[in-house]
C-alpha cells in the first residue's frame, strides 16, 4: 500500500490550505480518509484513543442491514413474479436465481439514487462548510431504499432523499445534529406529498400495475387489515385473514411490503449484530417490542373490530414494526440519550405504533409516525430524566 500512500502524500499539498485545489479539500479528505485512517495524533488530553471511530460504527450498522437487504431483494423478485402470474400461491423458494436478478433490477436503482442524491448534497454542504463527509448518511442512504415500496418511482426517491437530507439534517448542522430520523423523514415526505402513489395496493409489488390478470391486487397484509375499519373489508373476518397470511409467513417475511421490512428473521439477525457489537441500544429495542406487545394485548382486551382483535405477535411480525424497532428507533442521534429516557422512549414508541395502526384507517402503518413523533419527544423525555438527576443532587445538599 506504499504505492497508494505515496499518491496521497503527493496530492496532499495541492489540496492543503493555499493549494491550487483548496476548495476541493473536503472531497479529497473524504476519499483519503476512506482508504487510510489519517495520521492525526492526540494533541491534548489523553494520549491514546479507543480504536473505535464513527466510520467503523456506521459500517457495522450497514453489515447488520445486509440480511434485510438480501432478503428484500429476493422478496421483491418473488412478488414481481407473483404479480406477473397473478397467483399468490407461487412457491417462494423456487426459481431463486431469477427472483434474485429480478429483485436486483428493482432494488439496485433505488440504492443508487438514494446514495447518489444524498452523498451529492452532503458533499456540497461539506464543501460549503469546509469539512469532509460525515458518516451519518452512509447508513441513511441504505435505509431509505429498504423502507420504500418496490414500485416507487425513482424520481420520488430522489426528491424524498434530497428533502430529508437538506431539511431534516443539513439545516440543523449535519450528522449528529438532526432531530428527526433522516430515512424515516424521507418516507414520511413521500407518504404525505404523494399519498396516492405511496399507499393503496398499487406500489407494493414491482410491475403490479401492468398485470393482465383480472382481479389480482397487490395488497399487503396491513392494508387488508386496515380495511376492517372501512365499509368493505377485504376479508370477512380475522379468521379468513389469518388463513391467508399465516404467522410463520409473516415472521419469515414471505409477504409483500416495503423492500427491507418484511422478514422478521432478517431483522433479528441484524438486531443480534447490533446488540453483540453494542451499537444498538438494547433498552430501546426491548422496550419498543414490549410496548408493541403491551398495546396489542390492551387492544385485544378492549375489542371493537377485527383489526383490534389481531393477536399482538402478528402486530410485531407484520409491516415495519420489527425493522423500525431495530434500525430506526435506535438511531442514537434522534432517540433519547439517557438510560432511563431510552426505556420510556421505546415503550411509548412501541405502544403508539400499534395504537396508530389499529385506530387510524388513514395510516395502515403506524411505526413510521410513532418513531418520528418520539424523535420529537425525545428531548423532552431527556429533560425530565436530567431534571431528576439534578433534583437528586439538590436533595443531598438539603439532607446534609
Amino acid at each position, binding site marked *: *500500500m506504499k504505492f*497508494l*500512500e505515496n499518491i*496521497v502524500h503527493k496530492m496532499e499539498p495541492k489540496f492543503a490550505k493555499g493549494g491550487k485545489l483548496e476548495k476541493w479539500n473536503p472531497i479529497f479528505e473524504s476519499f483519503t*480518509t*476512506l*482508504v*487510510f*485512517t*489519517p*495520521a*492525526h*495524533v*492526540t494533541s*491534548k*488530553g*489523553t*494520549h*491514546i*484513543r*479507543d*480504536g*473505535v*471511530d*464513527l*466510520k*467503523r*460504527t456506521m*459500517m*457495522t450498522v450497514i453489515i447488520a442491514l445486509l440480511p434485510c437487504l438480501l432478503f428484500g431483494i429476493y422478496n421483491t423478485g418473488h412478488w414481481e413474479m407473483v404479480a406477473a402470474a397473478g397467483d399468490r400461491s407461487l412457491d417462494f423458494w423456487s426459481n431463486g436465481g431469477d427472483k434474485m436478478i429480478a429483485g436486483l433490477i428493482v432494488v439496485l436503482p433505488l440504492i443508487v439514487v438514494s446514495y447518489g442524491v444524498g452523498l451529492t448534497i452532503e458533499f456540497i454542504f461539506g464543501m460549503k462548510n469546509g469539512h*469532509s463527509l*460525515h*458518516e*451519518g448518511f452512509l447508513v441513511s442512504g441504505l435505509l431509505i431504499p429498504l423502507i420504500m415500496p418496490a414500485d416507487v418511482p425513482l424520481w420520488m426517491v430522489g426528491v424524498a432523499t434530497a428533502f430529508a437530507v437538506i431539511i431534516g439534517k443539513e439545516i440543523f*448542522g*449535519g*450528522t*449528529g*445534529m438532526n432531530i428527526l430520523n433522516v430515512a424515516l423523514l424521507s418516507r414520511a415526505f413521500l407518504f404525505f406529498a404523494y399519498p396516492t402513489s405511496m399507499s393503496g395496493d398499487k406500489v407494493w409489488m414491482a410491475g403490479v400495475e401492468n398485470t393482465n390478470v383480472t382481479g389480482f391486487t397487490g395488497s399487503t397484509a396491513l392494508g387488508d387489515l386496515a380495511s376492517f375499519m372501512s365499509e368493505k373489508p377485504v376479508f370477512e373476518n380475522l379468521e379468513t385473514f389469518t388463513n391467508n397470511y399465516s404467522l410463520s409467513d409473516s415472521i419469515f417475511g414471505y409477504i409483500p411490503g416495503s423492500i427491507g421490512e418484511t422478514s422478521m428473521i432478517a431483522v433479528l439477525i441484524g438486531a443480534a449484530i447490533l446488540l*453483540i*457489537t*453494542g*451499537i444498538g*441500544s438494547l433498552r430501546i429495542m426491548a422496550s419498543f417490542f414490549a410496548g408493541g406487545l403491551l398495546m396489542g394485548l390492551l387492544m385485544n382486551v378492549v375489542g371493537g373490530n377485527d383489526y383490534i382483535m389481531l393477536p399482538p405477535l402478528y402486530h410485531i411480525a407484520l409491516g415495519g414494526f420489527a425493522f423500525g424497532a431495530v434500525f430506526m428507533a435506535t438511531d*442514537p*442521534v434522534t*432517540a433519547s*440519550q*439517557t*438510560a432511563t429516557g*431510552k426505556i420510556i422512549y421505546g415503550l411509548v414508541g412501541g405502544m403508539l405504533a400499534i395504537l396508530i395502526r389499529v385506530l387510524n384507517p388513514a395510516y395502515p402503518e403506524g411505526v413510521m409516525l410513532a418513531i418520528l413523533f418520539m424523535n420529537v419527544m425525545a428531548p423532552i423525555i431527556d429533560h425530565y430524566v*436530567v431534571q431528576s*438527576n*439534578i433534583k*437528586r*443532587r439538590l436533595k*443531598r*445538599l438539603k439532607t*446534609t
Partner: protein
Amino acid sequence: MSKTIKLRKGLDIRLVGIANKVKTAAAAPKTVSIKPLDFHGMIPRMLVKEGESVTIGSIVFQDKYKESIKFASPVNGKVEAIVRGEKRRILEVLISLDENQEASNSGAIDINALSGEDVKAKMLAAGLWPFMRQRPIDVIADPKNEPKAIFVSAFDSAPLAADMDYVLHGKNAEFQAGLDALSKLTSGKVHLTLNGKLPADATFKEAKGVEINTISGKHPAGNVGTQIHHIDPINKGEFVWTVNTQDVANIGSYFLNGVYSAKKTIAITGSEIKDPAYLEVIQGTNVANILEGQITSDNVRVISGNVLTGDKIAADGHLGFYANQITVIPEGNQLKFVVTKGWMGPGFDKFSNSRLFPTYLMRKKRFTLDTNTNGEERAFVMTGELEKVFPFDILPMQLTKAAITDDIDGMENLGIYEVAPEDFALCEYVCTSKIDIQDKIRQGLDLIAEECM
C-alpha cells in the same frame, strides 16, 4: 464511618510496559525545572533572577494573586534560565545543580504542638502548599478556604501507574506525619482510601487519625474525584482538598526533618521502554539521563504522567510537578490502510471498550497502543458509551455539552463542582467522536472559577 465501595463502571486499559518492582536511585540530573504550567491558572511572580543561586527549599516564585503560595527549589544550584513563551508567559524555570546537594537542617517540628493555622503557615512558608489541591476547579488549594474534608487516595489505578504500596513501603513515619499535618488543616475528616482489590501496605493500613475507606473496581477507582463522590460529595460552596500519596510523605518528611523534601519514586513505563522499573528521582528532574539507552525506537512520545492525563514532554524535557510516572509510547503519525490497520481492519492491534474489535474477547492481553486518534473528530453521535466508564451519579455527556456551550446554570446543576478534567479522561478515551472532553471540562471549570467562585 468508613465506607466500602464497589464500582461496576470503569475501564482498565491494559498497556504493555508495566514497571518491574526494582528500585534504583537515578544519577543526579544536569538540570531540574519548575513549570508554572503544572499549576493550572496560576500566574507566577519571580523572586529570583537568572544566574542567582538557590538552595533546597528556598523560594523561587510565588503566586502573583495569592502571594502566600510559594514555590520552593528542590535542589541546591543556580537559576540557569527563565524560559518564556508567547506574551512573555513563563513556561519553566531551569535550575542547574551544584555538586553539593546537602540541605541545611532546621530541626524537627512537633506537629502536635502546632495549631491548624501554624501548620498552614509553616507549609506555606516552606513551599509545600502547591502539594495541596482543591476541588472544585482542580487547582492549588486557596489557603483562605476552609475544607470540609481532605482526601488522599492510597493507590493509582491509571494505566501503568506506579504501585503506591511498593513506592511508600517502609515510609510509615513520614506518611503518618503527613497525615497528622493534614488533619490539623481541616475541622472535618481526612479520608484515606485503599484499594479493595489488593491487600494494602502497612504504611496505609496502619495509618492513624484518619478515616480509612476501601474502594474496588476498575479505573477510575483510584482517582480521588471518584472517591470523593462516593464518600463525601461536594456541593456548591463546599471545598475539599486533595493531596497525592507521595506528597503526603513529603509533607511529613518536612515536619520530621525540617527539610524540604523533593525526592520521589517514579515508575518508568510504556511499551517503548527497554526495562520498565522504578527510579528514585528529584522533583522536576530532567529526564534525558533517565531515558538514555532505554527508548527502543525513534518515533516515540514521552509523557510525564500517565497516558490519560499526562503531559507530552521532549525526550530531554522535565518531569511534571505532580507526575508519579513517565510513560513512553509510539507516535501514531502514520497513515493506516483501511483493511490492514485502518478503520475496517481486523483490529487485533486495537484496544477498545466497544465490542467492535476481536480484542474485546482477549481479557488478559496487554496492548501496545500509539498516539493515533484512530479517526476524525465528529459531533456527538453515539450515546451511552461515556456512561459506561464514568462511575459518578452525573450525566457525563450532558455535562460536557453544558461545558461546550458555556452554560453556567447547566454546569452547576449537572455537577461541575464535583469533577476535575482527569475524571473525564476515560470518557475522552472511549469517545467515538474523538472530542477533547478533558479540555472542554477544563474550559467549563475556568468559566465557573471566573463567574461563580
